[in-house]
C-alpha cells in the first residue's frame, strides 16, 4: 500500500474515523496506535548521528 497523505473523515455518531480511499475505520486510539506502528520503520528516529 502506498503512503498517501490525505485527510480522514470523522463520524461523530460512531466515534469513528474512516478513509475515503481505502477501507480503514477506527477510533482515535486506533489511529494513534497505527501512527506509532508507522514510526517504527524509522529505526534511527531517536538516534543522534554525529559521525559522517
Amino acid at each position, binding site marked *: 500500500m*502506498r*503512503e*498517501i*497523505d*490525505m485527510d480522514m473523515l470523522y463520524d461523530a455518531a460512531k466515534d469513528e474515523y474512516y478513509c475515503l*480511499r481505502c477501507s480503514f475505520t477506527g477510533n482515535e486510539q486506533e489511529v494513534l496506535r497505527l*501512527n506509532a506502528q*508507522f*514510526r517504527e*520503520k*524509522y*529505526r*534511527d*528516529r*531517536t*538516534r*543522534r*548521528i*554525529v559521525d*559522517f
Partner: protein
Amino acid sequence: MVPEYIQKEAEQGKKEDLNRSRVLQESLDIFRTQQQVAHENELRTTIQMTYASLFNEEAIALAREHHEKFGDEIGSTFLGLQCQQFRDKFQSKELAIWLFSMEDKKKIVDEVMGKFQAVFGFYPTSTGSYYMDAELVNYIKEKFPMVKVAVATCWEEGPKAYWNANNSWYTLFDGGPWNPWIPSKCNIHCPASDEADDIGIVAIPHLSRDLMAVFDGPGSYYGTHPQNILRGMVCEDRQIPYFYNLVDQYRAMEKYNHGYAYNMMFVGPGWMSKNGRWEADYATLLKSYKDGMAYYGQLKKEGKVKDVTMSEFADIFRKDRSYTRPECTLWKDILYGSKRQQFWYADPWMRFCLDMNQGGAMIDLRPYAAKLVRPCGVGTPNLQNASYPFLIQSLYRAGYFTHYAGEGAVKSCKFSHAGEEVDLCTCRTVASFTEEAGTRVVTLEPVTIEFADFSIRVQSIFRITEGSGEIKIVRRVLDSTDPAAEVNIDEYITACYGTTEYPEDMTGIQLALKSSSGEETISYAYQCRQRRKEKINTVEALIPQMDTRLIMHANSAEVTGYFREGFAFSPMFTLGIQKTLVGKGELHTWLKVEKAS
C-alpha cells in the same frame, strides 16, 4: 500571504474568499514569528515577497524594517501568486508559474517584477518557485538581468510526490541536482557546460532533502524542513534528532566537494498554522521550527556555518568554480537503521546514483549531455511533466528484481562459471570516496561470490574524471579459491527512457556493435534479437527520443561485446562487454554519455 494550505484550512466548509482577513492576519503573524526566531539566533534571512504580499502595507513595512535592521534580503517569489488582484488581472486560479502558457508567464513576470520595483524602488536579485523552467528564466534574465539566483526546482519532486499527495499535487520535476548549480540555458535541470550555456543564475533546490529516503519514498517528509519531518512522523515525543542529522550530513558533503557544503531551510507560513497541520499541533510545529533555527544558530556561533542571503550565496557559489566541477556525495542511511550508502553524482554530462546495497549498481542515470529542451506549461507538449528524463530509474522501471524473466533498468555486473551466475546486485557492500587529481573515485569493499566448487573475491571501483563525460568501472577479481577456474565477467547496462513508471515507445533506438572488422546495428522493434561480436571496440545505443548516445568500451581488445533487444513485456535494451578470466584479473570498462545530434 495567503498560502494555499492556510487558505484551505481556514475556509473549511466556507466559500473561497481571497480577502478573508483572518487568513491574511494569521499569515502575517506567522511571518513575524519566523523572522523573530531567526533573528534571535542571529541568523539573516531572505524574505521572499509573494505577489499577494506586495499589496499589504504591513508586510512591506516589515520587510523594509528587517532589511534595514538585520540585513535580511528582500527577494521576490512566484509562489503565492493567488490574491484578488491577481484574479482580477489574470482571471486565473492557477498557482504554478511554470504551468502557465509562455505568453502568460511573460505577462506575470512583468507584473510581479514591476510591482516589486514600484513598492521597493529596486528590482529583486533573487526569486523562485517550486519550479522555474529554462524558458521562464531565460525571459527573466532578458528583461531583468539583475536577477542572479532562484529557487528553481524541488529535488526529486516528481511522480513519487504526486502519488503521496493523492495524485493531486502537480509538481512533476524529477531529475535535477540536489544541491545548488548553474543551469543550462536549454534545461533548468542540467548544469551548464560553459559560459555560453550559462543561464545567468545560480539555481537552488526548494528543499535540502535526504538523498536516500527521497529517492525511495515521498520526498516531502525527509528534508531540513522541520514541520515536514513531523508530517512524516520521523519523531518521538516531539523530538526530531533526524533534523540535526540531516543538517550534519549536508555539512559533511564538504568532504566530497572541495571543502564546500550547503544547506537551507525554506518554510512558508502555512506550516505553522494555529490550527496545527497534519498530525502536529501548533505548539509542536513552532517548537520544531525554533529547535531547527537554534541549531543553525549554534553552528554559526561555533564557526561551523555562515549565514548568507540568497544573493550573497550566488556570488560565493560562482567564485572560482569551473563549469566542469561536479557535485557529488556518498550519502548514508540516517533513517532506517541500515548501513546502506548511495553515491550521487552530477555534472554537465550526467547525473547518476550508485547503490551499495546492490553492489554499486547504477540505479539512476540522466543524460544531461543531451541538454533536452522540454518546455512545460499550457500550450507545450509536456504540459505538467517537467521532469528530466532518465535512461535508468530502477524503482520506476523494476531494476534488478522483475516478476518475470524479463529485465529491469539497472547497470551492474555478473560473474558466471559453468552455468552458475551471480549478479553484483545481490552483493551488498560499503564504499569510500577519494579524489585523485581531478578524478573522483568510489572504491567498494570487496564481496565474496560463491560458486558450487569455489569462490572469488571481487572489488569494484568507479572513477569519474572531471570533464570527461564518462565513468570508468574496474571489476577486480582479487583472489580465487581455485586459481585454475574460469570466470566470465559480464559488465552490462539495461536501460530504457522516460519520466514515469510507464514504458515509452522504444521503436527506433539503434543498438550497435563496432569493431575493426565491421559494425552490426539493429533498430529496436521489440523482437528480442541478440548479437555478439568478439574483439569489440564499442557497444552503443543511440536513443533518438533522448538525443543521447550511450557508449561502452573496454581497455582490452580481448573482450566480447553484445546487445540484447527487449520485447513488449520487457521493454528494455541491454549493452554488455564480457571477458573471461582465469584466477585473478580485472576488467576495465567505460560508460560514456553523449549528445547524439
